[in-house]
C-alpha cells in the first residue's frame, strides 16, 4: 500500500527511511523541516510551509512545499499515513 510517512523529529529520518518502500512518500513537519535545509535532503520530500516560516527557514525552488491544506490533500493521495514517532 502506498504510504505517506509523517516525520516530526530530524533524528528519526534514517529509521523512517529504512521502513519505506519505493512508492512511499515522506512529509517533514515540526522540527523535521530542518532536514530540507540540509545537504542530505532528498528533493522528493514534502515540507510543511508553516513550520518552515515559524523557524525562519526560507524554502528553495526545488522543494515540494505543502501548506496545511496541501498536506490534507496529500494524505488523500496515499492509501494510508504513518506518523513516525
Amino acid at each position, binding site marked *: 500500500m502506498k504510504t505517506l510517512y509523517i516525520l516530526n523529529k530530524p533524528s528519526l529520518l534514517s529509521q523512517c527511511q529504512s521502513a519505506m518502500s519505493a512508492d512511499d512518500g515522506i512529509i517533514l513537519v515540526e522540527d523535521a523541516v530542518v532536514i530540507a535545509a*540540509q545537504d542530505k535532503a532528498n528533493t522528493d520530500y514534502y515540507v510543511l510551509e508553516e513550520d518552515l516560516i515559524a*523557524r525562519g527557514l526560507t524554502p528553495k525552488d526545488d522543494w515540494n512545499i505543502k501548506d496545511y491544506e496541501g498536506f490534507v490533500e496529500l494524505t488523500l493521495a496515499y492509501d494510508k499515513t504513518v506518523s513516525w514517532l
Partner: protein
Amino acid sequence: MSKSLSIIFNKAPYGLQSGRELLDIALMAAAFDMDIKALFIEDGVYQLLDNQQPDVLYMKNHSPTFKALDLYGIETRLIAEHDLDERGITQEQLLPVAETTSQETIKQVISESDFVFML
C-alpha cells in the same frame, strides 16, 4: 567561587519547548550569580536563526530573548561552527548573540563545567 553551569541547546525550536525552557534556566541561574555558558550545537543552532515567525503556529517567538543572555552577564555564548557549516547556515542568518568556535573548545567548556543542562 561560584559554580559554573553549561546550558546546551541541541534541538530546533518549536517542536518542543526545550529551547525556551533552557533559556529561562540560563537567565534565572545567572540572576543567582552562577557562571553560565550557553552552547549551541547540532540542531540547536536553528534556535538562533533570525526571522523566526512562530505566530503562524500560534506560538510565541522566544528567539529575541537570546539577546538578554549578554545583559544577564552570560559572556560565554558559543556556536559549534562545524554544525553550522554542516547545515549550510552562515552567521549572517543568525541573531548576533553568540560567536562560532571549534568542537574542541565546546568539549573543553563542557568538561570544565560543574553542571551541564540539556533538555
